């Protein structure tokens, strides 16, 4: 009562709670044993159903029990239509009770969906109505959004109706990944882009950008809208095409802009399907080879390689943008810059402005892009590696676009690279200098250096060679001035480089005797 001090309730309560829990536990164990026993004996009856539902009501996540239920339900197939309808509607009700206990129970949601597919006449309209009601109470329960999509697919609701629904939900509360995501799935089917360059047709694209920008400005720290904006602006995939072709060791090597499938006799190099090789035919001469490649959907390429030279296409990482889209990008950049004046530390705005500047004119904005990447690293230390990798990609793309593709020697040193990108453009090069960068990882990406004879990785931050690929032509590898400290971080990864003759390990944390033994083990004796 009012005015009376509470006494000893905590201890009493604790004791009481423990007792309650013990009782619950006992009941639970008993029921589970009974259920498994019945299943073993094939007693698929009402009693089993009841035992299971009693447990599920308080523990809706035991999917084993839901599965046993499904087994039992399937044995009810012979029951009269009315009986079955009644059983299944009770079953729907059970999932409802369980979802009240745990609205995010995967098993209960799945069981409900399974019922829809196993009911003679499921009331899908009602399910859709329930979803709408449910999402009114909790608009961010992605289980319910998933279920809604499943119901919508079965009902064949027009995507445009669902699109309107997501608009309403976003207007109520735009901090909602599920709703934006659903939108990104619906839009392309409601307003497909005939040009294939954008995710949706141009008028809708502009409208969506306006909508999502409103959200970004209203709350720049809410990530859901920025992700959606990124999806809208997202670079369309690079055009598929051959980018390099050359001869090496009696084989034709052909490099593509991205993964592709070629028919025999082409063989993919390594596992990546980005580089393909085929042996020369008997009648082909190494002086001048002309061949035709056909790859999917009627794409055909005629390529001629002169002796000792490389056939190549200048890399282009940024697709052309229509004037209309360009003006949207520019105005989005304008507003982002205005937003940055107001919120100079807003990381999503910084990041998006970088994406925009890259899409608009990365040469013009180069210093601004790098400056803002520095700001991001400063304001968002937790993700500094991520931003560094973005910078590396940006710098590498620029360097590759400048590169003379016919040159056998490629120098990518002193670029502060922390990661490697688009390395397949280096397939023809025989000398590759990556010295004086900050490489620590992503050595796997070197695997496409099919022609590389000399690789210089001096003055990077390597602590291990983990991921270093077996390069068929590599003779000389220089690893001076890294942080390699033991033979275990080196030997296992170089063993398969059978052509390797020279290894320079100076300036690592290795003693001369360690260096000696490493070389010995790799079969590289000083000449």
């Amino acid at each position, binding site marked *: 009562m*009012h005015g009376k001090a509470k006494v000893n309730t905590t201890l009493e309560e604790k004791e009481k709670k423990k007792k309650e829990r013990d009782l619950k536990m006992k009941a639970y164990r008993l029921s589970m044993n009974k259920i498994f026993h019945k299943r073993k004996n094939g007693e698929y009856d009402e009693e089993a159903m009841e035992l299971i539902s009693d447990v599920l009501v308080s523990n809706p996540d035991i999917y084993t029990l839901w599965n046993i239920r499904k087994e039992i339900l399937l044995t009810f197939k012979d029951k009269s239509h009315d009986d079955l309808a009644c059983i299944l509607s009770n079953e729907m009700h059970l999932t409802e009770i369980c979802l009240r206990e745990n609205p995010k129970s995967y098993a209960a949601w799945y069981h409900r969906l399974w019922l829809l597919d196993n009911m003679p006449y499921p009331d899908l309209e009602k399910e859709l109505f329930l979803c709408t009601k449910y999402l009114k109470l909790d608009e961010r329960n992605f289980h319910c959004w998933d279920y809604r999509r499943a119901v919508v697919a079965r009902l064949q609701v027009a995507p445009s109706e669902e699109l309107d629904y997501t608009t309403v939900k976003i*207007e109520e509360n735009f901090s909602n990944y599920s709703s934006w995501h659903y939108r990104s799935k619906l839009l392309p089917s409601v307003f497909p882009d005939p040009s294939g360059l954008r995710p949706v047709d141009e008028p809708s694209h502009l409208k969506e950008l306006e909508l999502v920008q409103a959200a*970004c*400005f*209203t709350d*720049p720290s809410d990530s859901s809208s920025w992700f959606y904006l990124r999806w809208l602006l997202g670079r369309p995939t690079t055009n598929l095409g051959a980018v390099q072709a050359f001869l090496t060791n009696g084989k034709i090597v052909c490099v593509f802009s991205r993964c592709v499938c070629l028919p025999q006799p082409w063989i993919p190099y390594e596992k990546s399907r980005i580089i393909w090789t085929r042996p020369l035919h008997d009648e082909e001469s190494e002086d001048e080879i002309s061949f035709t490649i056909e790859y999917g959907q009627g794409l055909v390429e005629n390529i001629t390689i002169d002796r000792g030279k490389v056939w190549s296409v200048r890399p282009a990482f940024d697709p052309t943008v229509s004037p209309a889209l360009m003006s949207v990008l520019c105005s989005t950049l304008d507003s982002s810059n205005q937003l940055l004046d107001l919120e100079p530390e807003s990381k999503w705005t910084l990041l998006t402005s970088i994406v925009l500047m890259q899409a608009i004119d990365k040469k013009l904005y180069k210093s601004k892009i790098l400056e803002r990447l520095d700001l991001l690293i400063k304001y968002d230390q937790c993700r500094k590696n991520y931003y560094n990798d973005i910078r590396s990609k940006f710098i590498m793309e620029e360097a590759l676009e400048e590169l003379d593709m016919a040159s056998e020697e490629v120098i990518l040193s002193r670029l502060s690279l922390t990661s490697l990108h688009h390395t397949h453009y280096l397939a023809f090069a025989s000398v590759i200098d990556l010295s004086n960068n900050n490489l620590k990882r992503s050595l796997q990406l070197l695997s496409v250096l099919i022609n590389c004879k000399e690789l210089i990785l001096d003055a990077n931050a390597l602590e291990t060679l983990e991921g270093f690929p077996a390069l068929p032509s590599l003779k000389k590898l220089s690893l001076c001035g890294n942080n390699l400290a033991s033979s275990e971080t080196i030997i296992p990864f170089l063993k398969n480089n059978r052509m390797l003759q020279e290894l320079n390990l100076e300036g690592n944390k290795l003693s001369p005797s360690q260096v000696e033994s490493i070389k010995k083990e790799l079969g590289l004796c000083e000449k």
Partner: protein
Amino acid sequence: MSDDLPSTYDVIILGTGMVESIVAAAVARTGKKVLHLDPNTYYGQLWATLSLDSFELWAKTGTSNTKTLKGEDSFKSLSDKALKYYETQDERDCISDLTFNWNIVEDIPESEEEPKEENASGNEYSIKKIRDVSRKFNIDLAPKLLFAKGPMVEILIKSQVSKYVEFLNVNNILIYIDDAIERVPCSKSDVFSSKSVNVVDKRLLMKVLTSIQSYTEESPFFQEYENKTFLDYLKANLPEKFANFILYSIAAGDQNTPCLEGVQKAKKFLSCLGYYGNSPFLWPLYGSSELLQGFCRQCAVFSGIYCLNREVEAIAVEGDKYYGCASNGILLQSEHLVVSNSLLPQQFRGTGPSVKRAVLITDKSIFPEGKEGVSLLQYPTDDSAATILELSGNTCSVPKGLFIVQIVGNCLEEAIKNLFSEGGDDSKPKILYSLRFTLHQMECTGKLPENIHACPGPDFATDFDAEIRKAEEIFKKICPEEEFFAPLPPEPEPPSDEPDSPEEATNDA
């Protein structure tokens, strides 16, 4: 009839205004014996909600104070004690400059087959037609809104009086600015979806709204504006239009509102969003008087005695203590007297501030693109402001198709002129009926005996903060040991004739 009333009580309450009714319920809950009287035939005095007929009658009786004083001597026979009698006054003194008129024809001769239809369009209304549905009107004399997290909502929940009343959200928060009515974006979702706010302004607006929301005494944001006005702060951070949105609509302030006061008022508004939908305000269905009647009902549940249409002619005082009330030829005695300021004897009553009010019946909403229901429009002018509340059919205060408009503020004539038409201009809502008056607040000026507790009538604020505070203050004087609306002990289970179900019985064993 008078003789049916018992003659002694713990507390006699005179007047059924808001404060009096809250005190009645609070006191009765503690077990005190309460008698609650009102000279009118309806609840609420100047807080009343009236049907159209009663409202017209109320208007007709106008400002005429019908009270004739009888002289102290006429009460001497009521008691042997040496009592001094103070004669009570008429609440009508609170009203002045009352005018009203109908702006439509008396009657339309009924056409041959056309049956009566409530939803007749605009110019087909006649006085008769509207009077025929008089009972569908619930017109407030003192309409007030409830902040979703305000003290009234808190007390309604605590007292459980809430179960007697139903509410609607105030759906449209509007402002009249640059000769047009605009919706005020208050919440994050409003700012996001408002088409009239460009993206940069969205950010500026959100920034100001969030810094106001996160304001605490220690927050440094506003320190440089300590001696400046709220408008100074807003203008420094927002385009003028949005500065006005926040100043007039969200903070309900004016050009002179000091910064900190404005911040606190705006913060209160913003912190009320999201509890009962995307609006900070609630409005009681059937009108404000539902609230005070709810409290009266609770008082009655706790054995309070109610007697409307019953006057107390004089208050009897013995020495420096209140003794009882002379009513209808008998003396009703109590420990305490709670009395409305408006009824106080002239020795104790003075006239306080006043404000102009108007009530209109119109045929169209001021903001047809808004949601149906309750709209709150702030109408700021250079030197004053008017607050306009519009109720549509779903508030149960007016028949469907018509609107009740309540206007408070000294510039109301200008607002009426710009927002409504008296006929002719079809783009604006047409005024079918209008009533204007000046409402004076009565104050207690003299020194009352300490067991008399005077209650203020309606003030001009939005919510009931002052009323709740005053009611609690009075309650504490009458019941110093008790908590204001202490939770009730759980009701004893109704005795059941049937034994418990066998299952439960075994569990208990």
